[in-house]
Structure formats: C-alpha cells, structure tokens
C-alpha cells in the first residue's frame, strides 16, 4: 500500500491535539523530522509537532514560507474551505459538532424526525413485502 498523503509544503492538515484542536492548518515549511511550521488565516505562524497533525487529501500550491497575504489568497484560490466541508471527513466533523451543541428541544425535534423517517421506511418495506409474497 503506497502512501498517498505526504508531508509537503502546501499540505492541509487537521490539528488533532492541543490548543488548536480541530483547526485546518497549512504546512508552510518543515523544521526537522518531527516538526513543521504551520500557518492558518486566524493564527500566528508557529511550529507544531507532526504528532499533533493529521494530514488530509487537500494540498495547495504555495512556495516555501509565503507571507500571510499570499497564503490567504492561495487558500481562497484553491477553495479549501468548501472542498473540506464537502468531503466526507469534513461533513462528519460538522455533524459531530452539531450533535454536541444540541439543546433538549433540538433533541426532541430529532426524535420526532427519526420516528417519522422510520415510519416512512416501514411503509415502503411493507409494500415491497406484499409485492413479493402476494
């Protein structure tokens, strides 16, 4: 199984530990075997250990250590935000966040919606059963 996601300049990674948990950052340069210089539009450029990063499939085209303006422009041009939110990984994270922030009324609404959906599915199943046995 060859590797598909490489640490390289322009690779988008997700922070999976620490203060910036859940942020998407760009690897802007590699310090050494364990650390990278990462940058994101809303944070000061800093170093991060690879153990705190999970690489994604998205890669943007930047030169080594671009300045902030160029970086933001490149992120816009590659449309990273939309690509991430439409990817299955990104969508799952959004759903997780939504579920964690529900209040009781939302959970009640979800319960009703689930019951309704199950009712519709059962109706269709009953129809199919009648066709095969009848």
């Amino acid at each position, binding site marked *: *199984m060859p*590797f*598909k*996601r*490489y*640490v*390289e*300049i322009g690779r988008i990674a997700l922070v*999976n*530990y620490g203060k910036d*948990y859940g942020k998407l950052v760009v690897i802007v*340069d*590699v*310090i*050494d075997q364990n650390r990278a*210089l990462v940058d994101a539009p809303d944070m*000061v*450029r*800093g*170093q991060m250990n*690879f*153990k705190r990063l*999970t*690489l994604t499939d998205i890669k943007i085209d930047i*030169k*080594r*250590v671009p300045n902030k303006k160029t970086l933001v422009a490149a992120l816009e041009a590659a449309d990273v935000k939309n690509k991430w939110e439409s990817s299955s990984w990104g969508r799952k994270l959004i759903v997780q966040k939504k579920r964690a922030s529900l209040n009781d009324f939302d959970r009640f609404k979800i319960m009703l919606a689930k019951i309704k959906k199950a009712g519709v599915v059962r109706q269709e199943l009953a129809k199919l059963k009648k066709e095969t046995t009848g």
Partner: protein
Amino acid sequence: MSYKYHQFQVVGRGLPTETDEQPKIYRMKLWATNEVRAKSKFWYYLRKLKKVKKSNGQMLAINEIFEKNPTTIKNYGIWLRYQSRTGYHNMYKEYRDTTLNGAIEQMYTEMASRHRVRHHCIQVIKTATIPAKLCKRESTKQFHNSKIKFPLVFKKVRPPTRKLKTTYKASRPNLFV
C-alpha cells in the same frame, strides 16, 4: 511554546577602588532558566576570565533577550565545551529551529541523551545562525529542500485530550496514516 532556557544579557564590573576608579565593564550573553541563575553564571565565568568576584563586583544590568523572528526557521550552529568522564572536549552541533532558545534546549537534551552530559557540565562557547550553504551536518542539510516531501509512516492515534485516555482499548490500533 515555553522554553526552559532563557537567554540573558548580563552586564557587570568590579567595584571601583582607589587604584582603579573606572573598572572595565563586562557584558555576557548566557543561557539560564531564570535571572538568579544567570547572574550566578555570569560571576562564574567572569571569575575564570578576570580577577573579580561577586563580593568585590557589582551587577549593572540583566535583561532577557527574546527572539527577533520566531516565525522563521533558522539553522543554528552551537559551539560548546563539555566535561565527559575522562576530560574536557569541544564540540560543534547544528540544529534547525525557529528560535535560539529552542535550539539551545535541543542541544542540552541531545547532549544528555547522546553523551550523558548533564547541564552543569556544558559551557556554550558561541552560537550563530548559519546560512544553509555553510551547514556541515547531513541531518540539517537534508531539510534544505524547497520541495521536501515525505510520508508519515507510523501514525499513532491519540485521544484529543488526556481526559479521554484509557488504559485498555477494545481493539488494536490502526497505525497506517
């Protein structure tokens, strides 16, 4: 990023006497964990170089030196003198880091691990930022590649906070990226 070793600039001189109204002022840049240690280190080194002690000298200034560009990666060369079990040796080491304090911390931990040399047996002679062309060590030169690319081979999955850590897991971890 909090660093253990801070860089201080310490300025001091011997006390003025009848024979020497204006003694020479000496300045040193050194690394210590705090100001008190820095002052102590200053007198230690000054004693070895000049005929002056803390009891007949005075501290004029002590300031912490901060990194000017902590967002750029630099190659640091550190010249040091250390005491091994058999004698004193000089060494030159290179580190890639964003700040000099970080590089010094790397040096201390590396000397402790590779040579079993403790912090008090190491004297930093000189430090410098080295341009990429003049780096001598392969381990720093291998990162001087603008198109650097490598995969992360073993990816241990960690719980995102230490609170979610458990001693036992239901299944074996998947280490592939």
